[in-house]
Structure formats: structure tokens, C-alpha cells
């Protein structure tokens, strides 16, 4: 089995899956479920291409979905540099970003970068919206598929 991160949003996954018999678990598996269930989401991603790919993925499955979001490599670099999750949260304007998501009336905040799992408790604590952590959900998918 192969477990991939948000890089897969910019890959041709159909082509990749044809090349290997191994089961591939990626954020796209999580996004499939989100596209079916939600009408409005706010995505936090590491860069523009990932954010754009997530939006395209959602809209090709749910044309009426409202997708807004934020991307920055800065929080990724901060997460890789700083060890204390509370300091990471405080050093970047995550509180403003979460407030923005609430003002835009999103139904949920999607952590579209697996680095963000590192500060999931802090994000959940400050968010007025449900938080969907792609990394944690992928782990659950791997567990489910291993026990199937």
C-alpha cells in the first residue's frame, strides 16, 4: 500500500494507479467524501497549485460547491522549524484565517496540507467551524482498508 500527501493533487492519479497493483491512499480519497457531503468549504493549503487543484477536484464533482481558501508556504516552513505547536499557531495569523472562514460562511475548514496535522488541536480549539484534517482521515482510511 502507498500513502501519499497533498502532492497527489497535482499528479495524474489515474495514470499512477494503472502502473501499480498497490492500493494508493491519498488526500483525493478524503476529498471525494467532502465533495459529496458539503456545499461550502474553506481550504488551507501549502501553495497555489494545491489549492487550485483541490478547488478543481471539488467543482468537477459538485458544481455548486463554494470553495474558498488560503495558501502559503510560510506556515509549512514554520511548522518544519518550530517544535512547539502553540508557538507555531501564535506566530502565524491562523486565528485571522479561521475567522475569515467563519465570515465566509463555510461549513468546514479543510486542512489541505498534511503539515497542518501538527497543529490540529490548536486549529480545532480556535475554529468556530468543524475542522477536517486530511492527514488524520487518510490514516483512518488506511486502517479501515487493512482491516477490511
Amino acid at each position, binding site marked *: *500500500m*502507498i*500513502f*501519499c*500527501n*497533498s*502532492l497527489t493533487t*497535482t*499528479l*495524474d492519479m489515474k*495514470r*499512477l494507479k494503472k*502502473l*501499480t497493483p*498497490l492500493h*494508493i491512499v491519498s488526500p483525493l480519497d478524503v476529498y471525494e467524501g467532502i465533495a459529496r457531503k458539503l456545499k461550502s468549504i474553506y481550504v488551507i493549503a*501549502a*501553495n497555489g*497549485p*494545491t489549492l487550485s487543484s483541490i478547488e478543481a477536484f471539488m467543482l468537477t464533482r459538485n458544481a455548486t460547491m463554494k470553495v474558498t481558501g488560503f495558501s502559503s*508556504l510560510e506556515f*509549512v*516552513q514554520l*511548522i*518544519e522549524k518550530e517544535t512547539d505547536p502553540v508557538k507555531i499557531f501564535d506566530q502565524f495569523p491562523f486565528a485571522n484565517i479561521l475567522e475569515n472562514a467563519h465570515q465566509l460562511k463555510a461549513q468546514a475548514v479543510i486542512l489541505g496540507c*498534511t*503539515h497542518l*496535522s*501538527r497543529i490540529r488541536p490548536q486549529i480545532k480549539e480556535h475554529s468556530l467551524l468543524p475542522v477536517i484534517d486530511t*492527514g*488524520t482521515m487518510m*490514516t483512518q482510511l*488506511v*486502517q479501515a482498508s*487493512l482491516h477490511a
Partner: protein
Amino acid sequence: MKVAVIAGTRFDTARGCSMLEHSGILCYPIPIADTPKEQNQRQYADAGGLQTKIESIAIIT
């Protein structure tokens, strides 16, 4: 069963492995970049190369 974790940086790959290993799942980490900037560059400037690299990893794995 062992799970290959393919992610952007060593940090990210280790995080993925840590989350899986916490659930008792054995992992084999495969980072594709050393830094977030390098990962970004691959996505922006060399998407074809990134596809080829991950395809070759998937075939070997």
C-alpha cells in the same frame, strides 16, 4: 503489511509515518524533496518530472 509513505519533505514523510505507526502500521518513508521550497519548485516548475519520479517509486515499491 508495510505502507510506503510518499510525501513532500522528510518532515512531512516522518509525520505521515508517525501517524500510521501510532496505529501499529509499519511504514517505509519516501520523501521527494529536502525542503518545502524544493517541493514547491517541483510542483510549479517540474510537474512532469514529479509525475515521473512518483511513478518510478510506485513501480519499484
